[in-house]
């Protein structure tokens, strides 16, 4: 069989391969004795998954119609379907690409941070988590999404618990309790939906919610379902004030795991929330009449400020970035919240069906941009930890002099986080502010720019520490990070700049997805 015919035969099954490949890889990694072999399996699997995701997104963008994959060839209401549309294709590629880029980094970092015996376990859990995250995004079935949510979460608990610090166990335990509460709330929500509509397929639920809403008694149940599902998923994506599990989890997990989770895990949950709001509930309820957008906007803004302030005062660089992640999730969710509100006619000249919603575009673009920037930042810290075994400010003082390339990449990604023009972060900020103007909420524009000033303070503070303080004993001894760490780090840092100058890869796709999502409900 020639390669061509093989590819042709495989192509229709790409959606399921996206899940099967990492699942199978996880199984293989489990039985390996050597961390290096397990790492190699993970590397191959991650690259393969990224290629598949890339292929899927390209297919969607060229045809414009969603890819539906029926598992076991069962039709939708009975069987589970996987559905790849612009939104899920975009998020799939972001997650898979981030995972693939950081794999070369992982080998040395994991070898240094995790006991020899546990290293294959790490890779097995990582691949399991990857399978779960891809599953959440690709599935078209509400309960299947729950299953994948649990798969990824369980794997995440292990990843965190593998951290070297004693507190890693407590962090994993707290995340386990909270994650379970979140998953339970979500499952209560979809349980209610199942009772009301008799189906678990997202599209079918959407089409059957209309009649349920007409009946005042059942309407209450729909509202409760929305509330439960919303809060459950919000906990997973660390929306303020349900974010407190996150700083410890990110601080005490192994460096690579932190970078991976920060770049991808919350993003999958964000995807699920957007899916629920816009393609399940949004179809038959006009979202702007619900309290959810208001709650979302208020909590997002609270996160943008309160978490940023905590980041300013942190003395542990990883924890500082963890707080910053909570704030950045606030940006994404603010965009999503703004997309729920009606666009003022005065501000745009075209109808929402033809112009992409700026708020949603901002949210989606920032999913990609934040994943790239935060992964770069955490990888840089991972390289520092690899060299000096600490990321406390007092230990990393002056390390810019001994690890200039690492800290330069950190600085570039930091500029992105602040939304400096010429970096990816600026693009997100621009669309987010436009989205706020579109809805007539001028005050939110000021809150957005004001909160980016706080990120300037925490990035400025660490910049000053690593470049201008007298080097600590450990930092003075440090050597530049090895090439296998620098290359992934710099790929992400350069992407931060590239995506700030050429926005076709992010904004165009996100705008397309936003058009489908928001236009579809108006």
């Amino acid at each position: 069989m020639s390669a061509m015919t093989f590819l042709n035969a495989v192509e229709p099954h790409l959606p399921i391969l996206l899940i099967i490949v990492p699942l199978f890889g996880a199984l293989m990694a489990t039985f390996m004795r050597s961390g290096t072999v397990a790492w190699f399996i993970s590397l191959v699997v991650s690259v393969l998954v990224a290629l598949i995701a890339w292929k899927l997104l390209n297919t969607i963008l060229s045809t414009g119609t969603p890819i539906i994959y029926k598992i076991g060839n069962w039709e939708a209401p009975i069987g589970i379907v996987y559905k790849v549309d612009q939104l899920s294709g975009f998020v799939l590629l972001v997650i898979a690409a981030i995972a693939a880029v950081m794999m070369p980094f992982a080998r040395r970092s994991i070898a240094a941070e995790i006991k020899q015996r546990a290293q294959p376990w790490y890779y097995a859990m990582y691949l399991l988590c990857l399978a779960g995250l891809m599953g959440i995004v690709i599935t078209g079935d509400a309960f299947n999404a729950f299953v994948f949510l649990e798969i990824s979460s369980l794997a995440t608990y292990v990843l965190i618990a593998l951290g070297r610090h004693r507190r890693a166990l407590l962090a994993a335990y707290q995340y386990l309790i909270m994650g379970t509460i979140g998953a339970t709330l979500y499952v209560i929500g979809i349980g209610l939906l199942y009772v009301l509509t008799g189906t678990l397929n997202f599209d079918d639920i959407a089409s059957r919610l209309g009649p349920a809403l007409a009946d005042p008694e059942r309407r209450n149940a729909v509202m409760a379902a929305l509330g439960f599902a919303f809060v459950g998923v919000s906990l997973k994506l660390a929306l303020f004030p349900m974010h407190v599990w996150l700083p410890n989890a990110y601080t005490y997990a192994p460096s690579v795991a932190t970078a991976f989770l920060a770049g991808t895990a919350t993003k999958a949950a964000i995807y699920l929330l957007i899916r629920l709001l816009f393609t399940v509930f949004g179809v038959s309820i006009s979202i702007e009449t619900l309290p959810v957008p208001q709650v979302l906007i208020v909590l997002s803004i609270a996160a943008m400020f309160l978490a940023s302030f905590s980041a300013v005062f942190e003395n542990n660089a990883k924890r500082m970035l963890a707080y910053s992640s909570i704030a950045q999730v606030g940006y994404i969710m603010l965009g999503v919240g703004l997309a729920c509100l009606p666009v003022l006619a005065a501000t745009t000249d075209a109808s929402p069906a033809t112009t992409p919603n700026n708020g949603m575009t901002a949210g989606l673009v920032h999913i990609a941009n934040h994943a790239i920037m935060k992964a770069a930042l955490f990888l840089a810290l991972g390289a520092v930890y690899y060299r000096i075994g600490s990321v406390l400010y007092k230990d990393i003082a002056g390390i810019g002099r001994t690890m200039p390339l690492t800290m330069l990449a950190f600085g570039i990604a930091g500029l992105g986080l602040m939304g400096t023009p010429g970096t990816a972060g600026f693009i997100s900020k621009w669309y987010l502010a436009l989205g706020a103007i579109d809805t007539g909420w001028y005050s939110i524009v000021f809150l957005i720019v004001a909160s980016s000033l706080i990120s300037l303070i925490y990035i400025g503070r660490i910049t000053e520490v690593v470049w201008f303080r007298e080097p600590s004993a450990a930092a003075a001894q440090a050597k530049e990070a090895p090439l296998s760490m620098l290359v992934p780090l710099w790929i992400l840092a350069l992407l931060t700049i590239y995506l700030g100058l050429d926005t076709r890869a992010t904004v165009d796709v996100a705008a397309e997805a936003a058009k489908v999502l928001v236009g579809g409900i108006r």
Partner: protein
Amino acid sequence: MTNELNPGLIVILGALLVPFLPGRVLRGAFMLMIPIAAFAYLRTLPMGDFGQMELMGLQLQTLRIDKLSTVFGTIFLIATLLGVIYALHLGDWVQHTAGLIYAGSAIGAVFAGDFVTLFFFWELTAISSVFLIWASGTANALSAGLRYLVIQVGSGVILLAGVLMHYRATGTLTFGAMSTETLPGTLILIAFGIKCAFPLLHNWLANAYPAATVTGTVILSVFTTKLAVYTLARGYAGTEILIPIGVTMALFTVIYALLENDLRRVLAYSLIGQLGLMVAGIGIGSDLAINGAVAHAACGILYFALLFMAIGAVLHRTGTAHASKLGGLAKSMPLTATFAVIGALAAAAVPFFAGFISKALILSAAMKAGHFWAWAGLLAAGAAVVIHTAIKVPYFAFFAKAQGEPGTEAPANMLLAMGLTAALCIGLGVYPEALYSMLPREVKYQPYTTEHIITQLQLVCFAALAFVLALRFGLFPATTRATLLDSDWFYRVPGRHLAMIANRFRSFTWEVVADGIVKGASKTYHALYHHHGPDGLFGRTWPTGMMAFWTTVTLGAVVILSYL
């Protein structure tokens, strides 16, 4: 992406190569080439809009060449070259790179044709310049740098908010004349005003410039504020509100410049005063006034750079720039002293020095346009400049009774930079046409009339007399308070009382204004730290039960809100 490159980008790209060059000689030669190459390239560009580029579906014009941008671009490039020469002795690539990126972004901003490009360079000036402050490494510089950065980037984000609203309201991003009637126009003016050190928005300048490194201060003094002057001239020419703002800037800084002891701080306040002159000129808005503002920006860049260079050389050699610890350096640093005097003469607007040919334009414009009070205010401020900058700075550094160790003459590269700048200060004064022919508006103006010369000379002489009298009666608390007190002459009652009153005035204004701000800020800081610090409510780890509790509260809130 772009077909024509912004000259600022050439400087920035060059700056990025600097760290990778081995050896001080090669690096130095390369750095000298950067502004020269950019200038040669600028000369080849015709007038017009170039550098079309698309970002996020927006059409950008990254390069606009007209008379206004060319004159600022040219003077910025000259200043870059002088700054590079002045800093050649440094081995620190961080400062070299940051300084060149900073200069390049200011040049880039001047040539930006649209608001997005302007904003890009605007933020870049802020971020790159902070390294010039941090590089001096003192604890004060570290915190002053962060405060400076927040204010500078704050100006940027206000600009961004204004630009976004402007874009939504008008659909265009071209940076042209703006109106202050609308919210976006006002926001953009505030953003410019922060960088231009408008009254009450000026503190960053006086705090940050003296905290920077020796070479950093020289570079800083050139770009940020003059870039703001450029943007005001482009966007807000003839905006009446700028006249009182400018006159206030010229006047209120006098008292601080008179009383300050740190000579770099004196110059920083004096710089704000001269900015006031330019701002007022832009506010008047006539062709003559705009030309005056632009010309004064160009001359001001030169003579302030020269003065900062001279005081920087003193700081470099003696380790201090405080008036009370200096003096008598004319013997040990004769060349530096000569250059400082030339800078001082230019600052005093003595005929045949740079300041004269530009200041006369603004004052004539104020008179012609009938702004009598503005004219009087600016004239009075001009007299004060003679005292606090032109005489006080060189006097206490070089000619007063020596208070500290004598220094040695400045390094050769510093002397060369000062010599070139001094030559330019005299050259422009003797041959003003060189500058006048580049000015944006078509105006014939003759600065060297008998009347102009006599008026200005009278002003300078009276100011000099006032200085001598003030010195005689101990009216300079900066010095009386400290070491000069040992000569009992100055203990005489009237002198001391006047000095104390002046001091009290200063502490009074500080107590009311600054202390209030400082107290408020530190209260906010402590409150924030209390809640957000590592042990605060939002910084510490919550017990699991508390996390679950808040989840429940959120759930309850969402569900209840759904039923309302």
